[in-house]
């Protein structure tokens, strides 16, 4: 009846896990209790859980990402504490099994439940308005993607209380991840968490490809699209090409595990190397999927806060495209050491190094944009500068790793760990923090506190440096990755330094939490009344903050790059149309939420071999799809009167704001010529 699920599945005896579970349960109870106490379930359900609005979906993605960032960080801190205290003669406080769960969970969560939802969340927030659209092409599908991602995330959460999470690393290499070596629930949790959210991601890819290619406002040619939208477009091409490969690899692995197939097993003709190939056919493009949107954010931020047109728009676009194209051709560098011939290694090594060129081009373009600009050092710009400085180091160590000779020594060492964190943290994470502080006022109508933002920035930057630079040295000293304990006393001091670094990062995270709370409390002082708090250049700043459901009452016409800056320059930015028309918008629906819940139950059933439950959930999913596909009337109309009412309110706020000085400031900043020189002094 309950498959292999029994009370023994709960790890009672592990104090650390049980206290984490208790903490999780208390947090959950507080949230549920507060929602009930304030009678907010109806609101939550109507306005959020069933919403198909891209802004709200974006926000929900980002909330998921921040929750998992906390969890991923706690795992990281635990690993740092373990390695600092598990030197020769000591054993640390974790079993090696638990340590393996930690690095597997940390890697999986950080890549798939932090980086991906952050990126997809930012894209949801910014891309539809940047192209002058009212919503994405398939709003319902968007909600399905969201809830599938949540379903995967919830499986990881549950794995803490029931059974265990994977121990085979975030790459799940065979044959260790096969039934014979890891018969417990761990790898199954890992598989289904990624599989379900991954399918959601593929659907997002399709959705945004269509949105960007087909829903642009009149006049917005491809070569007039904002760079962030370009980065999203190219990222989504990678998603649609790469994620199905992951789906297949995981599907085969689960057939091996569930039904005793022999794709990747050590016997009966299975081929373990095939798994590794298939994994990296997804995995390598994936590292570009998580970095390219960050490049897009940095470009927008640099242009805005230098108050200049981005230098080399076209080369930026080509560089993005070249990086994306090449990312499919280099996956073999992940297994230089696994016995292929020298010629093959050399080809892939050279291909890998060539990717550094377009990346370098981008860095030069950002610097050229900043050259002789009057830079405003607001939070998004700080994250960008921190990125440029730190990422350059990560890029260089990447080129070093691309040399097979060095890779033979450094692969699977702490040098590699240092390298990929050096790319992912200043790249992806700083990029998304830049986007978070940049677009926050757009989503919520008020800015984030500057002071705490600065503290957070320094906490992360210094913490990152202190936590990861020692790992390069440790790697050079020969310390392998994924060590639960070790016997070389020389490593211990550096591991303590790394642990100190994690503490400094924690300071940054705490500042971010304080920043959010204090900004909410001071939201009136921080209010963004105009919808354009930074002197923005692209169309999302032409809407009110937070945007109305329909984004634009009248779809704007686009005449060049930086469409909103053009409008401000020729004085059409805040013109009211002669009259408003009715607007059709997609209706909210519970179908996405139902699909997500059913997908979660489906995964849970499979993990625990509760077959009837999995079948039932599968039927519910199919039923929801059929039900939805038979529904014709999925739109509702916002009457012209109501549009006028909402817009009246918006212009009242703008009028209010123009009495305040900083708006005048931001308007005068609008008047610049092509080279970014102000037209009027001031």
């Amino acid at each position, binding site marked *: 009846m309950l498959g292999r699920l029994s009370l023994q599945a709960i790890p009672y005896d592990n104090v650390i896990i049980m206290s984490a579970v208790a903490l999780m349960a208390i947090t959950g109870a507080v949230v549920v209790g507060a929602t009930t106490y304030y009678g907010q379930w109806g609101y939550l359900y109507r306005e959020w859980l069933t919403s198909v609005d891209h802004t709200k979906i974006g926000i929900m993605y980002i909330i998921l990402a921040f929750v998992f960032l906390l969890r991923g960080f706690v795992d990281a801190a635990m690993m740092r504490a373990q390695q600092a205290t598990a030197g020769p003669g000591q054993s640390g406080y974790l079993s090696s099994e638990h340590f393996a769960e930690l690095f597997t969970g940390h890697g999986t969560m950080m890549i798939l439940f932090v980086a991906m939802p952050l990126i997809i969340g930012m894209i949801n927030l910014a891309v539809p308005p940047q192209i002058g659209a009212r919503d994405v092409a398939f709003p319902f599908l968007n909600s399905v993607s969201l809830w599938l991602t949540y379903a995967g995330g919830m499986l990881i959460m549950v794995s803490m209380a029931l059974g265990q999470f994977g121990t085979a690393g975030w790459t799940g290499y065979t044959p260790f991840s096969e039934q014979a070596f890891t018969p417990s629930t761990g790898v199954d949790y890992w598989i289904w968490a990624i599989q379900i959210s991954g399918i959601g991601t593929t659907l997002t890819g399709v959705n945004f490809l269509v949105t960007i290619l087909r829903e642009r406002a009149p006049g917005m040619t491809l070569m007039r699209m904002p760079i962030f939208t370009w980065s999203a477009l190219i990222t989504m091409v990678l998603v649609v090409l790469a994620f199905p490969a992951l789906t297949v690899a995981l599907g085969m692995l689960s057939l091996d595990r569930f039904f005793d*197939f022999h794709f990747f097993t050590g016997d009966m003709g299975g081929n373990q190397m095939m798994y590794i190939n298939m994994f990296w056919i997804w995995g390598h493009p994936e590292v570009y999927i998580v970095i390219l949107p960050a490049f897009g954010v940095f470009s927008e931020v640099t242009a805005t806060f230098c108050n200049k047109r981005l230098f080399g728009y076209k080369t930026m676009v080509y560089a993005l495209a070249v990086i994306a194209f090449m990312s499919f051709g280099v996956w073999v560098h992940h297994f230089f050491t696994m016995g292929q011939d020298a010629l093959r290694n050399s080809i892939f090594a050279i291909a890998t190094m060539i990717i550094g060129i377009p990346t370098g081009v981008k860095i030069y373009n950002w610097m050229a944009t900043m050259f002789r600009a009057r830079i405003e050092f607001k939070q998004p710009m700080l994250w960008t500068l921190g990125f440029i400085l730190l990422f350059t180091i990560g890029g260089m160590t990447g080129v070093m790793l691309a040399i097979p000779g060095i890779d033979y020594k450094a692969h699977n060492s702490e040098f590699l760990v240092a390298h990929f964190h050096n790319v992912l943290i200043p790249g992806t994470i700083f990029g998304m923090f830049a986007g978070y502080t940049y677009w926050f006022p757009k989503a919520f109508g008020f800015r984030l506190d500057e002071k705490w933002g600065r503290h957070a920035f320094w906490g992360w930057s210094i913490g990152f440096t202190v936590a990861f630079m020692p790992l390069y040295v440790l790697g050079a000293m020969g310390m392998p990755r994924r060590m639960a304990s070790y016997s070389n006393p020389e490593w211990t001091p550096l591991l303590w330094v790394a642990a100190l670094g994690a503490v400094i990062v924690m300071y940054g995270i705490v500042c971010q939490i304080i920043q959010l709370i204090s900004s909410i409390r001071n939201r009136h002082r921080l209010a963004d009344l105009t919808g354009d708090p930074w002197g923005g250049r692209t169309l999302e700043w032409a809407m009110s903050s937070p945007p109305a459901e329909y984004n634009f009452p009248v779809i704007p016409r686009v005449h060049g790059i930086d469409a909103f800056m053009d409008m401000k320059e020729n004085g059409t930015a805040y013109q009211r149309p002669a009259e408003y028309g009715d607007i059709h918008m997609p209706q909210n629906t519970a179908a996405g939420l139902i699909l997500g819940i059913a997908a979660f139950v489906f995964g849970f059933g499979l993990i625990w071999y509760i077959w009837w439950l999995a079948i039932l959930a599968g039927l519910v999913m199919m039923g929801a799809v059929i039900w939805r596909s038979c529904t014709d009337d999925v739109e509702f109309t916002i009457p012209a009167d109501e549009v006028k009412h909402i817009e009246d309110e918006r212009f009242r706020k703008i009028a209010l704001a123009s009495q305040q000085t900083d708006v005048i400031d931001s308007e005068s900043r609008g008047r610049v010529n092509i080279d970014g020189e102000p037209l009027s002094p001031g």
Partner: protein
Amino acid sequence: MATTDAAAHDGIRAEASQGTVVNFGFWLYLMSDVIIFSMLFVAFVNLSTNYAQGPTGQELFELPLVFIETMALLISSLTYGLVMICLRQGNTKWVQGWLLITFLLGVGFVGLELYEFLHLAFEGYGPQRSAFLSSFFTLVGTHGTHVTFGLIWILVMVGQVAYKGLTPAVASRLTRLSLFWHFLDIVWIAVFSTVYLGGMYR
């Protein structure tokens, strides 16, 4: 719809292109399916001689059976073409008729495939026997699963045509189903040549 200039433009554009937008999205989804099948083909080719002392394709496959299967699917593509012709003529009765005939041919295809699978499994040559058989069952089975979902979709559409008639929404769904069905046909041709013909003459 909207009354101002730009909004009117937007409205017209939206109405005219809504169908093509959905079709474009569906086409992109099919591209991601192409990747899935390509990976399965790569796996099959890679493992196709890993018999693990088990039987080879030559010993297992019965070409006459597969030939009938293939014919059923090819003809069903043809009859689906007739669905689309009758749809353009607005002939509700024959849209339903050809849909049902397509459905029956599809059921025939899946039935024969199931027979083949069960037959192999009872002889002891299930997917557990060797990596070659694992990849064979997975590739062919994935295609069969797609066909099965297509069959369910056909039934849903028969129902929709009966209840709603040939409304624009229904017509547009029938167009996408047509894309899907022809797509499965093309994939099957690749399966037939790689797996069965390739297996026979290896």
